[in-house]
């Protein structure tokens, strides 16, 4: 086979310039700037900038609060990723078998995806309001003295519920597509071999869904780590107080609200490293166990 070759060696690079420049300007430059800023201590207005070496990292990691925030982020991410995947999978499996009105049923499950995070946050504030919230009243009916903004774990519960609710539709869409791509012949063969629906699901359907599931797991972890910012911000209503804080939100609090750019940059570099490790681990160790056809 004849190779297609450009006659001028520089030409392909020229074609790459638009994409590379976008990556440079929007990804590498800010990242490099964050790394640089993390070694400096600067007054908020940017007059005096002192090189402090690793002091920002030391101050960040030695603070008692940072460990608490990291611990909460871990719990939060696990809960959000698990529940949004599990509920979406259940709904997808059930929706897959619906015969009548399947389309409207699916649309009903998907529309939540179109809600912007701030709107979701506002709805949450109304739902969980201390005095007027229907959820609060419901919890009180069951003897749970739910107080958003006062009790740390009650506020965390509200954050998890809203974040999960917001993420279910996209997981649902992917799971449904994944289910529908499983060949009919395989399902029919399984139906003959094994009459038990649950065990058939775990031995046949679930493994065949693994590529979708793996992809969604990564998407959901990054969602819980980063994209829940809007929900956290709205539930805080401008006052962090003793409300749960995720690592990303703390970067914002210290850097923007507090004006400590060095400390905040150090935290974002730590976060960058975490994401890097996470990506490597996921692709190295987990992908091997997933069967793509």
């Amino acid at each position, binding site marked *: 086979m004849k190779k297609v070759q450009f006659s001028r060696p520089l030409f392909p690079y020229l074609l790459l310039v638009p994409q590379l420049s976008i990556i440079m300007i929007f990804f590498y430059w800010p990242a490099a700037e964050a790394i640089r800023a993390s070694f400096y201590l600067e007054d908020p207005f940017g007059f*005096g900038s002192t090189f402090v070496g690793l002091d920002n990292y030391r101050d960040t990691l030695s603070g008692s609060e940072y460990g608490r925030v990291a611990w909460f982020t871990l719990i939060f991410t696990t809960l959000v990723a698990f529940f949004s995947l599990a509920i979406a999978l259940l709904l997808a499996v059930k929706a897959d078998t619906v015969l009548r009105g399947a389309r409207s049923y699916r649309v009903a499950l998907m529309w939540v995806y179109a809600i912007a995070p701030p709107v979701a946050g506002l709805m949450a504030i109304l739902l969980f309001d*201390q005095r007027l919230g229907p959820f609060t009243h419901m919890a009180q009916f069951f003897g749970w003295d739910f107080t958003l903004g*006062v009790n*740390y774990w009650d506020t965390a519960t509200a954050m998890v519920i809203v974040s999960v609710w917001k993420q279910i539709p996209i997981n649902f869409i992917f799971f449904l597509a994944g289910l529908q791509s499983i060949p009919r012949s395989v399902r029919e063969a399984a139906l003959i071999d094994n009459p038990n629906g649950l065990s058939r699901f775990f031995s046949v359907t679930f493994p065949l869904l693994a590529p979708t599931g793996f992809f969604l797991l990564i998407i959901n972890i990054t969602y819980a780590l980063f994209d829940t910012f809007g929900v956290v911000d709205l539930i805080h209503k401008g006052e962090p*107080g*003793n*409300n749960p804080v995720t690592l990303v939100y703390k970067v914002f609090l210290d850097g923007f609200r*507090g004006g*400590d750019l060095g*400390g905040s940059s150090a935290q974002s570099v730590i976060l960058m490293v975490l994401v890097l490790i996470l990506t490597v681990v996921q692709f190295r160790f987990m992908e091997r166990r997933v069967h793509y056809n």
Partner: protein
Amino acid sequence: MNLKSVLMASAFAFAGTAALAEKVEIEFWHAMGGRLGEVVNEIAVDFNESQDDYKLVPVFKGTYEETLTAGIAAFRAGEQPNIIQVFDAGAATIIGAKGAVIPAQDLLTNNGIAFDANDYISGVRNFYADTEGKMIGMPFNSSTPIMYFNEDAMEKAGVTPPKTWEEFASVTAPALKEAGYTPMSQSHMPWIFTENFFSRHNLPFATNNNGYAEGETKILINNDAIKAHFTSMKEWIDADLFGYYGTGWGDNAKPFEQGDVAMWLGSSGSFGGLSKTAEFPFSATYLPYWEGVTSEPTNTFIGGAALFAMEGQPEDENKATAEFFRFLTSAQTQYFWHKETGYVPITNAAYDLAKTDGYYDRAPAAEVGIQQLTLPEGEWTKGYRMGFYVQIRDVMNREYAKFLSGDVSIDDAFATIEEEANKLLARFAKTQG
């Protein structure tokens, strides 16, 4: 219409706006939402109509924290407004950044406007001044925490507003609880129960003359009097004698506005809004004090915010800013602002005008803030100046909330605040070096 005529028309349109824009336009970023924002806009209209040379454009930028952040970002990008409103907790940040602002005092005198610090009421004079007493920020919405009370509730319970916390605990609160009310709530623990706790009881809040002197400051928060106060607060909450609804200002104010809570510690600047929302007769009085701590309670700090003229603007715009400051501090404008919002008048002339107009005969509660600010001063009641203070307040709120929900002991909570605050202060001192 062909292309040429479209171009002609737009050229004329541009020429038209250019002709109208001969006035020097200055931008004013503020954090006054709701009713307060409307009053700011009214003042801007009044200023613009009062003369022909300048045009003030007020821009609402969100909360105090958001406004300061927006101002910092804009300054770093060289796009700063002419005037920015910065709140008490942000004072150290903006005053510490030498070269970010033109001291209000210099701005006025350089533009030929007379300035005398003694024109300003005593509680206001020092807070936004530098070490030498030069006024850097122009006090704008000055408030102080006061105690509002629902008159119906007090009557029903047969009590009067408590002068001391001892009276609150033994007489007022149990009677109000008996009458079916939650006796009290407050909206800002760092401001009301910390900063002003130190001021009201004349206790030092930080080393270095409460942080006003140069050098590294240490917070003096780990103090038995304030620890006893918070211990009592938790006991009251547990006994349903006090309502705690989280850190949010509104979450704690709402139960009072709706008549469930009988007394509310809020800002004197809340008066205007309350007059419109509360459907019961209410009044206000001084913040209670602990008789066990002091027998001579002193004045409180001013809170609220000041206006700062930002550096890097052309001369004619600075002149416009100075003229606006002159307009703003005039007795008439101050009286109007005071009446509409409840913020205290910042000059003696405005205070006198309100008095001679008989305003306080009609609305005695409106005078409480300024009276409390002009109570006898103590050594430690002029104010405080600490860097990264927004974060320090956040640490206080977090630890107080942890203590109130029973997660940490009082000693641990205050030890954490002290440690983290001192760490932040040390970091801030380094940025100033």
